[in-house]
């Protein structure tokens, strides 16, 4: 299967699905290890929502590809060079502050992205977005509350969340740099011009940081091209683990 030459709408769905799957997978690594029971449950909820969302995108993509394509073939049989998620979402969990900083940046972007996708000219995509935005609104609220709580908690938590926000800041630039697929999707009316989301995103982020009296991090944008399949070294390990069973038993169904 040549993933990068398939239909543009399929490639766009894969990009959207990959963000959801990879971040959902990362969050699921927390299960059983959360800082407090209530938060263990909350992190699992995020993971459930995101993996569930990935399935919807992949199922639609599989249907459009036809020829017996399935969501699982899309998830388990592509290599890291064929994944189209942002490099931000594949970053390892780190401590709870890192996980929340990564989530906070992504949730704000994801919310704006879904807001636009609700009005997609691709009506099946719009239907997925309309359902997902409710969950994502809650996700954004949850991560914002934690950024405020950690920022305005103890000296230690303030230092830690400040460091985590700075650590992931350079990864956020990729969210707003259109890939060729983003451009095609925008031209066709399927999705937003991602560059135009930067302003509203900064407003959302800044509003929360101000509540916690935190500064907007400084630092340069990283040169990142996850959306074109050039990932960080961590994605290969994530996929090796995630895909291990189907690849070890290629004839099996589960």
């Amino acid at each position, binding site marked *: 299967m040549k993933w990068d030459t398939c239909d543009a709408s399929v490639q766009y769905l894969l990009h959207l699905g990959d963000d959801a799957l990879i971040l959902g997978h990362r969050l*699921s690594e927390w299960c059983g290890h959360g*800082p407090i029971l209530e938060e263990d449950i909350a992190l699992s909820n995020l993971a459930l929502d995101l993996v569930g969302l990935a399935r919807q995108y992949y199922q639609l993509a599989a249907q459009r590809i036809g020829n017996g394509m399935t969501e699982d073939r899309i998830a388990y049989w592509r290599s890291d060079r064929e994944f189209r998620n942002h490099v931000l979402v594949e970053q390892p969990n780190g401590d709870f502050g890192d996980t929340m900083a990564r989530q906070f940046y992504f949730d704000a972007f994801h919310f704006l992205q879904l807001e636009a996708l609700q009005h997609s000219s691709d009506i099946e995509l719009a239907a997925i977005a309309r359902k997902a935005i409710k969950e994502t609104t809650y996700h954004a609220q949850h991560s914002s509350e934690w950024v405020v709580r950690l920022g305005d908690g103890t000296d230690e938590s303030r230092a830690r969340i400040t460091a985590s926000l700075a650590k992931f800041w350079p990864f956020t630039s990729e969210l707003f740099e259109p890939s060729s697929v983003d451009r095609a999707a925008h031209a066709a009316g399927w999705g937003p011009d991602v560059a135009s989301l930067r302003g509203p995103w900064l407003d959302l982020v800044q509003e929360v940081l101000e509540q916690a009296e935190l500064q907007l991090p400084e630092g340069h944008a990283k040169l990142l091209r996850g959306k074109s399949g050039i990932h960080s070294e961590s994605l290969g390990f994530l996929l090796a683990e995630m895909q291990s069973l189907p690849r070890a038993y290629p004839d099996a169904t589960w």
Partner: protein
Amino acid sequence: MAPSIDMEARFLDYVSAENKVEPKDWMPDAYRKTLVRQISQHAHSEIVGMLPEANWITRAPSLRAKLILLAKVQDEAGHGLYLYSSAETLGTSRDQMIDDLHTGKAKYSSIFNYPTLTWADMGAVGWLVDGAAIQNQVMLCRTSYGPYSRAMVRICKEESFHQRQGYEIMMHLARGTKEQKAMAQDALNRWWWPSLMMFGPSDDQSPNSAQSMAWRIKRKSNDELRQEFVDKTVPQAEFLGLTLPDPDLKWNEERGHYDFGPIDWAEFFAVVAGNGPCNTERLEARRSAHAEGTWVREAATAYAAKQAARRAATAPTAKASAA
């Protein structure tokens, strides 16, 4: 003042008449102690029990399986919460109970000290371990302590999904390739006996059983529950086409039950004593999650206190300006 014999006798009459005991009711100290021990041990089992299954969430072989397993393990966290809350109604804090787990003072179900080695273990654990737990929990829905009984009713509703998802995994494997079937049989071989041990030692070996029965905390003996479980599970294994690893297992027409071979209690006591394959890892995982979460919990507490102080400081001003 020591409670009179009269109070104890009246309490016994009260629970014998199938009345529920509520947090503010008078209860014998020993009843309270037994319950705190049992409910907290039960809560710890839910939480430690997340670990062997969480071990496979990131390797679930399909997206659907990943969601189901994650939802299942998340349910167990919820069960832990209900149970800690119901134990707290007896006057012991969740922090105290968690401390007792981490220092090794409190126990959790020994079954979770076995490793989950293949995907088939997710099937065997759901089918057998949750299955055995259900046997016990259905009985506990009618336990005499109200908050415990109500927690159990909520938990039992979710548990049947747990067992079904486990059995479904086994079914897929048993109907699958040769390797998948072998994987299922191997998991069954490893989990069968430890599952039977989950009900605890035989009745003549369990010193607290009789008292718990009299107080209506327990309603059935360990051996009765174990027998029910065997009788229920044998046909399920047959339906899968898998063999239970017990040469002595056979239907006893006269008893109307399956006979089964002797349980290796030496193994059970070795695991309880801390020498199971994963005791150290399980406890270490819980301790380190708790330790690494300390700064987060402290931050949440500090923030809540600041917010409360801010509200207190601004409330009168707001009133004054309104007036």
